[in-house]
């Protein structure tokens, strides 16, 4: 008991130490700002003004939700307003028809919207971005047309009047403020943590992220459900603030307005949605005021104002207000560059991957026929052959990107049938892609961490920053630095991956793959584009990994590298293995010389 208390105490002390270390001027400013906002009702006593502010804060909550889908998930959602509608009308009906209390009604709205998010997301998050936009757009219309068509749900032209909760405007204001702050903090934690890193990788290079075992569907679904839930919560609370649920207020235009706010503020930053919405409200008020000078009802021109804002922000290629401010005032970024020490390299352990009689055809073309392969711990199997001989197809089948038409795949005598890419990465089979595909906007260290994501705890633990999650985070970073050392990139740890040279990027890809803690490494032309010196370095790294006991399958064009490191060489020609053996054995065979030099003699 006392020991447990002591442990908790130490954990809190460590958390406090970390918080103090990471605390910078922007954090102080933010804290002061939030405190001032909390005390605002003491100054603003006009209930109407306070109601407007609270309504704006609830909208900001929905907008922050949208940022989860848009900025983190990279999904152009056009139905955030529809989620607000679902929350609002569920809460309104619960209040007006069943006499449920305000809190229960809000929770009811939240629950139903979350369910709707799960249901829609299960179908939508696998879609490409275009189809996703279309699907969410149609959903927004379905909700709007449904509300218009069913007065029994929407209350028709009069809407649904909600009995007064007796909570008062100040209560709503404080609640909305707290919820917005929590949502922003959650966004911040997720964006910086493992799920954010994985989603960022997925946005930049989907194929490379998938090859590292990122569970795309699950992560995107998470982001989408959070966005739906925050939209629903916002709707179910704001409708009680307004006292009436007006069906015309929740059309696709609301979804569009929220989209504009998020784009304007900066979709990939925690404060982007709030900032964008504030700026949007300010500009709208300004335009209404100018309109009133000319006796125009300027409100009907809001859509034009929004359109111009979208065109200006996106047209300038801008990421939005917050990233722009951050460039203007770099100290605002306040990235805590905590000093890191590399741990000793991870102990590696290989596994035996066997392939028997693998066959795959694309239409009439037989890409691979009768491939036999055994990758053992501490050995490097090289696949060589002319272009189009089926080497990459073989790796794609081994990694689970392609399913073979026939043949058996086993890892340590366990069949690999029916396992996808992500499953195989977790079992220890990982592949690097043929094309150079690092996550350019992430640092080298973050690239490696994107590979390490799978050992992290859940997103909830990341958000709550539990002591365990933080300890794991530190351990991960140290291990990632060690992996960078192993490929000779420790100096470049904090450099954006896009600034590295081509051959450094190839080694970074290797490091990302190593971070998944693989047992079988599948490398596709890892030496491509390197100088002789680069290739020599790479050879040393591969030899080291072989000594560590990893199983490696190497697809290579550089025959010198193959000769230096490979234990076994398999020569492929037009999908068929034509020779297997050591470098010396294979080079002497006439059919190999024919395949390489061409069948047509002069």
């Amino acid at each position, binding site marked *: 008991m006392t020991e447990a208390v002591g442990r908790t105490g130490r954990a809190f002390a460590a958390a406090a130490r970390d918080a103090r270390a990471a605390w910078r001027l922007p954090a102080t400013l933010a804290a002061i700002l939030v405190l001032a906002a909390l005390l605002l009702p003491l100054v603003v006593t006009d209930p109407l003004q306070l109601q407007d502010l609270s309504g704006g804060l609830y909208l900001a909550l929905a907008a922050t939700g949208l940022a989860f889908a848009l900025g983190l998930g990279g999904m152009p959602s056009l139905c955030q307003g529809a989620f607000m509608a679902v929350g609002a009308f569920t809460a309104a009906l619960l209040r007006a028809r069943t006499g449920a209390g305000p809190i229960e009604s809000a929770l009811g709205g939240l629950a139903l919207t979350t369910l709707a998010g799960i249901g829609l997301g299960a179908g939508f998050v696998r*879609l490409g971005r275009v189809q996703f936009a279309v699907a969410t*757009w149609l959903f927004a219309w379905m909700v709007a047309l449904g509300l218009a068509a069913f007065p029994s749900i929407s209350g028709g032209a009069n809407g649904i009047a909600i009995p007064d909760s007796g909570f008062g405007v100040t209560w709503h204001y404080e609640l909305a403020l707290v919820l917005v702050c929590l949502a922003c903090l959650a966004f911040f934690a997720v964006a910086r943590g493992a799920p954010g890193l994985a989603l960022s990788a997925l946005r930049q290079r989907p*194929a490379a992220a998938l090859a590292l075992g990122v569970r795309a569907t699950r992560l995107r679904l998470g982001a989408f459900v959070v966005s739906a839930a925050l939209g629903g919560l916002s709707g179910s609370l704001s409708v009680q603030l307004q006292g009436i649920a007006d069906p015309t207020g929740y059309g696709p235009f609301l979804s569009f307005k929220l989209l504009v706010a998020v784009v304007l503020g900066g979709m990939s930053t925690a404060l982007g949605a709030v900032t964008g919405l504030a700026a949007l409200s300010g500009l709208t008020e300004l335009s209404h005021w100018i309109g009133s000078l000319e006796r125009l009802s300027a409100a009907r021109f809001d859509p034009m104002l929004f359109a111009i804002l979208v065109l200006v922000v996106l047209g300038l290629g801008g990421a939005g207000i917050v990233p722009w401010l951050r460039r203007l005032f770099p100290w605002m970024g306040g990235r805590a560059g905590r000093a890191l020490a590399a741990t000793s390299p991870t102990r590696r352990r290989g596994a035996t991957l066997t392939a028997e009689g693998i066959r795959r055809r694309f239409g009439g073309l037989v890409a691979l026929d009768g491939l036999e392969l055994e990758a053992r711990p501490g050995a490097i199997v090289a696949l060589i052959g002319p272009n189009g001989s089926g080497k990459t197809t073989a790796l794609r089948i081994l990694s689970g990107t392609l399913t073979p038409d026939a043949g058996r795949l086993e890892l340590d005598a366990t069949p690999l049938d029916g396992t996808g890419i992500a499953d195989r990465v977790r079992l220890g089979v990982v592949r690097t892609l043929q094309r150079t595909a690092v996550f350019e906007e992430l640092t080298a260290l973050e690239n490696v961490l994107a590979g390490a994501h799978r050992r992290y705890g859940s997103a909830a633990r990341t958000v709550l920053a539990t002591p365990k999650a933080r300890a794991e985070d530190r351990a991960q970073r140290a291990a990632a630095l060690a992996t960078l050392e192993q490929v000779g990139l420790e100096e470049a740890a904090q450099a954006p991956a896009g600034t590295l040279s081509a051959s450094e990027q190839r080694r970074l890809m290797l490091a990302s793959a190593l971070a998944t803690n693989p047992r079988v490494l599948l490398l596709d032309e890892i030496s491509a584009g390197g100088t002789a010196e680069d290739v020599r370095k790479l050879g040393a790294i591969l030899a080291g990994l072989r000594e560590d006991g990893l199983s490696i399958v190497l697809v290579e064009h550089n025959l010198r590298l193959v000769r230096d490191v490979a234990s076994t060489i398999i020569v492929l020609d037009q999908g068929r293995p034509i020779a297997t053996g050591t470098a010396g054995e294979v080079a002497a065979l006439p059919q190999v010389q024919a395949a390489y030099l061409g069948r047509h003699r002069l």
Partner: protein
Amino acid sequence: MSLALQIVVTGLAAGGVYGVVAIAYTLIFRLTGVVHFALGELIALAVFVTLVVAAGTGPVTQTSVGGGRFALALVVGLGACVLAGTATYALAIKPYLDRGSTIGWVAVTVAIAFAIRAILGAAFDRPSYVFPDPFPFRDVGRGGVVTLAGASIQVRAFFVLALAVVLAIVATWVLERTKTGRGLQAIASDAEGAHVVGIPVDRLVAAAFGAVGGLAAIAAIAAAPSAPFDVDTGTLLGVKGLVAAVIVRFATPWRAFAAGLALGLVEAAIASADISGFRLGPEYRDVLPIAVALIVVALQGRRREPELE
């Protein structure tokens, strides 16, 4: 029987218009990979510009416009629509396509949709408008309604349906039999390759963007006198056309047209359906087809191959 015939004819007439709009979405999608979220508003623009030139902004009756003036109005209305479509592509979509920013062009096309709505809403602020009818359909039967096998059907419905079919045929003919059309097909299958062999990709695509909007607008204008309309009519037409195009996954113009016809039929059936005791009603008319389209889209997602390298 009589009711069934009525449903079929009116449903097909509405569906013909949806079908032409669906063709427009499909062609644009196949050319550029873009879904034109402002298509319905461009159609509304054409209808309203035609109305203004033909009859001014005052109240109109169906009979008050002469043929010559209407022809002029049609030219101006379609011209405005084609021009707006081309400009949309050149100024608002192309830059984001070049940058590979899906969120960019999605946001911009939706923004343009709402901006056009705002302008039209400000300029035409009566709750609904009557569109003048240049053809003397009202002289056929009883005020333009004939009785066929006990069913009362607007004569206009036949005209709209026939025109829609003609438009679909024209679109296919242009695509398959003309040099421009073959150029467009080349772009649809491989834009870069088309550019290399000397097809003026940008110009053709921009022109096509405008032309398909005009195509859809012709169908909408032909149907416009059948019922009072407002700004929302165009937007809703855009949504319906999108539903039809999505259900057949933007496959081919003919399939999109067929899906549009089917959608019109289904809507008419839902609106007046009492299918073996199972009662639906007009309130389900808009919502149910969208729900079905969403389910179809979701199932498409399940079958999708993992992302390619």
